[in-house]
């Protein structure tokens, strides 16, 4: 059983490291930038999301971006050559969900390896047209990922369960 709430900052640090892993591993990128920003880009109108749960908190990790960046990210994941056409939209959605899934797995591994006794359950990834906005009681952080014409905001939304909240 998880003994104390993991802070938003810890989730954000693990998310940043995990995005670096995904960028260099699954996406094969050598040159990219990740920075902290204060709010989601107004251009972010679609993206992939995945929930992570401990017995003390819920976290939603989102890749909030635009369709063009989704296409570019999916091309990188699928290792498509320049002369190959873009994948169909269903595969673009699938690829963005899979990037979110791989990132969530890396976040879980980072946090579980750093803390003893943490139990994190991953949900299934999903794609949205639009964006998920934080609701009351939910703290969030935004990391901006930029590479090869891609701008993608990584949205970390965190809510400790009200009846089990403890000091971090």
């Amino acid at each position, binding site marked *: 059983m998880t003994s104390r709430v993991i802070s938003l900052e810890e989730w954000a640090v693990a998310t940043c490291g995990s995005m670096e*892993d*995904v960028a260099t*591993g*699954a996406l094969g990128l050598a040159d990219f930038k990740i920075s902290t920003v204060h709010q989601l880009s107004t251009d972010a109108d679609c993206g992939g999301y995945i929930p992570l749960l401990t017995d003390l908190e819920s976290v939603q990790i989102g890749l909030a971006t635009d369709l063009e960046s989704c296409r570019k990210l*999916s091309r990188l*994941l*699928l*290792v498509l050559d320049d002369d190959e056409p873009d*994948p169909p939209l269903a*595969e673009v959605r*699938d*690829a963005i*969900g*899979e990037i979110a*899934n*791989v990132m*969530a*797995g*890396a976040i*879980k*591994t980072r946090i*579980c*390896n750093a803390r003893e006794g943490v139990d994190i359950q*991953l949900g*299934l990834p999903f794609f949205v047209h639009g964006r998920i906005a934080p609701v009351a009681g939910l703290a969030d952080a935004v990391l901006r990922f930029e590479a090869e014409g891609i701008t993608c905001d990584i949205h970390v939304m965190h809510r400790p369960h009200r009846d089990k909240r403890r000091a971090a």
Partner: protein
Amino acid sequence: MKVTIIDDSKVMRAIVKRTLRQAGFNDVDVMEACDGEEGLQVIAESNPDLVLCDWNMPKMTGMELLERLRAEGNRVRFGFVTSEGSEEMRARAREAGAAFLIAKPFKPEDFRESIDKAMAA
């Protein structure tokens, strides 16, 4: 070699197939399934040498599929290819009878090493 790839993501199944080739497994007959339930059916029909399976899937998880196979006496070589690579998951996979767990993102060398060991065992 006959390999069954089970993952709810079509994109990930394509990536696993491509990585098998990159790892040097060129002469592989691949069958696919999109969740554990379909995986059970495909395995029963095709009797593969190796199953490469995601963990987190709708309907029936990879772990539920592995437990079901072993309960039915099916000893097919089974490896997880999953986004979750913590020590706890690896231990659970081993205990359930998986030969290996490859965490995403992965490299062709990860496939080569894990599959070679599993096939030699």
